[in-house]
């Protein structure tokens, strides 16, 4: 981290007590095209899930940004749906939220289709609340306009941590996770590092002026797996 460490302000201290998690219905916006960082963050968050995950996406998302590739992280009970239209994705997600055997429902939609109205997001939000499992809608190539999502994230890849074995090689992945609107959690921005040897996510809060919070070392959240 090359940024200058400043003294934390009072509200930053309060925020460090918690880290953003995917609860209820969240939508995720990507910073640029073909940035797979959000997927890594999502999968790391759901690593401890004990039931199946339904992952539905429209064909355009998988064509443009590539299909999910699970060879190095095979998990039993991973359901993958490739569907032609955004409308089908929303329907599959609703079906998934009607199931009691899932631990998370993830959808991917490309662009801003007409079917993705406020009503459609509200339906997902209500169903996710009724079922009590996280539901995430990944929006490729879209602007964060009106939505009933309870948590709204913007996730971007950051240059990775230094690799202890090879200074020229990328190390553990790091992401900039911004929770810009939330009903149940305090909004904020974090630098998240995926410690792959221990398989845990380290959250470092960023103050609103872009400075790094002081106690970034302590604000870790383990993802035992």
């Amino acid at each position, binding site marked *: 981290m090359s940024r200058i460490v400043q003294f934390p302000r009072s509200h930053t201290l309060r925020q460090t007590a918690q880290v953003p998690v995917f609860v209820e219905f969240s939508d995720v916006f990507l910073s640029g095209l073909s940035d797979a960082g959000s997927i890594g*963050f999502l999968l790391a968050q759901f690593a401890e899930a004990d039931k199946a995950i339904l992952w539905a996406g429209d064909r355009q998302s998988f064509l443009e*940004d590539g299909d999910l590739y699970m060879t190095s992280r*095979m998990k039993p009970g991973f*359901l993958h749906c490739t569907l032609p239209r955004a409308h089908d994705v929303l329907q599959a997600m609703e079906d998934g939220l009607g199931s009691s055997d899932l631990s998370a429902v993830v959808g991917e939609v490309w662009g801003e289709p007409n079917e993705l109205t406020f009503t459609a997001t509200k339906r997902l939000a209500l169903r996710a609340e009724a079922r009590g499992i996280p539901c995430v809608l990944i929006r490729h190539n879209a602007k964060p306009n009106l939505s009933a999502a309870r948590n709204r994230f913007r996730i971007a890849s950051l240059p990775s941590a230094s690799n202890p074995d090879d200074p020229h090689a990328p190390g553990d992945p790091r992401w900039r996770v911004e929770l810009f609107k939330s009903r149940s959690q305090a909004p904020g921005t974090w630098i998240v590092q995926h410690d792959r040897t221990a398989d845990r996510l380290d959250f470092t809060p960023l103050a609103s002026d872009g400075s790094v919070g002081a106690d970034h070392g302590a604000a870790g959240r383990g993802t035992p797996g």
Partner: protein
Amino acid sequence: MAQRGEAHPDDIPAVLAVEGHHGPVVHAVNRAARLLGITPHERIVDMRSLCPHLRVEYGDLAGDLRLMDKLVLWSRRWGPWSVRDGAHSLIVDATGVPHLFGGEVALLADIEAQMARLGLTARPAMAPTWGGAWALARYGTARAIADERTIANMLGALPVNALRLDGACVQLLNRLGLKTIRDIAAIPRLSLARRFNRAALAANPLVRLDQAMGRLAEPVSSEDAPEPVRAIVRLPEPIQDPTNYIAGSCEEVCRQLAKRAQGCRTLHLTVFRTDGEVASVSAATSQPSRDPAHLARLFEGKLEQIDPGFGFDLITLNADGIEGLGAFQTGLDCTQESGLTLPHLIDRLSARFGAKAVSRPVAFESHIPERAERKVAALNSAPMGETAFRERPIRILHRPEEIRVIYAVPEGPPAQFIWRRQTLKVLRYNGPERIAPEWWHDLPGTRLRDYYKVEDSQGRRFWLYREGHHEDGRGGDPRWFLHGMFA
């Protein structure tokens, strides 16, 4: 069965012709032509001399066969098992069926009436044996019905042609003065057996006689098929939309399955249209089921695929893929868990979006990245396979996309390249990881790949590879591709 009589006046002699060895020959005749003495298999030129104003059309034999094949399916409305017999007849196994139509006479009348609706003239006949029905339909009285006691008598009066014998054999029997089946039946079996002991089936009157009389088994279905599980809805009027009958049919099927402690994996909904077409849709489940509500929901949104034509008056729901499924207790208290179970969810998604759309990733033993993971339809269970230990990207492109190298360096990946019209600058990289082609699978001349994990200035991490290397003798300069993205 006669040819389809489409607005052709019956009093004008007309024939259908097909190409023979020496010009066209008569394939089929109408009634007026038959009265003039025109018979099939004669040459058209000869028949024109008999009847100069004979109307000749070319027959469509392939089309006739296609029509017959469709009719074979459609005729399953009268029995569970039907097969085409020759070019223009079909056999329906109606054992135990006639009471559904109000008796044997009514069944044959129904066959005639339904065929007449399609513009086809049918000559139905019913007999305990295939051979008997064949003979009675062609040479017997109209709508002949024979049972085990009367078949010998009824067949006895018919000519020997009715025994499904070939022309040479019939000629031989006629020369011997054996005109009717009764004549043959009167001959001692030993003499017939000695005379025809090496003859083929079509030239063996004794075997054919035994088949017709039921002394020699000629099963319609060769294997001992279990009782089918099906629900049948007969409607008084043709309708266009089967939706209202799905739930009832599913309940009926599930009741039959429950009686046998079984569940089904596939359901076929078939509608029998009034215009002689059969349309069907299928739904599959990932685990055997006999939950009527669940099975009925699988047809949601699928019924639009049925083309109802001018309506249908018969709906059948067949259960397939039947497996054992015992009764089970869901819990000690009577509360049921709300929500779908995972198999039910898979069924519903597969029914709605197609079995291919819902899949599970399965690892496969291959070094080539695009082969290392397969998507297996979630309806089929498959072992998950071993997790790869090497670092692999989190997303992979369907096809590797070629990148334009702007600034190449001798060792390692390009320092700058263009991909999808954006210029990317490589700051850090890891690699190479060399993946050789699989010689047992790939074409000869496939180049090896050197994979690099690169990170650009924005922090995005990509998986690049160089196809081949300089002077490997497999093409020109190596090209660079982008294959995937890391988290």
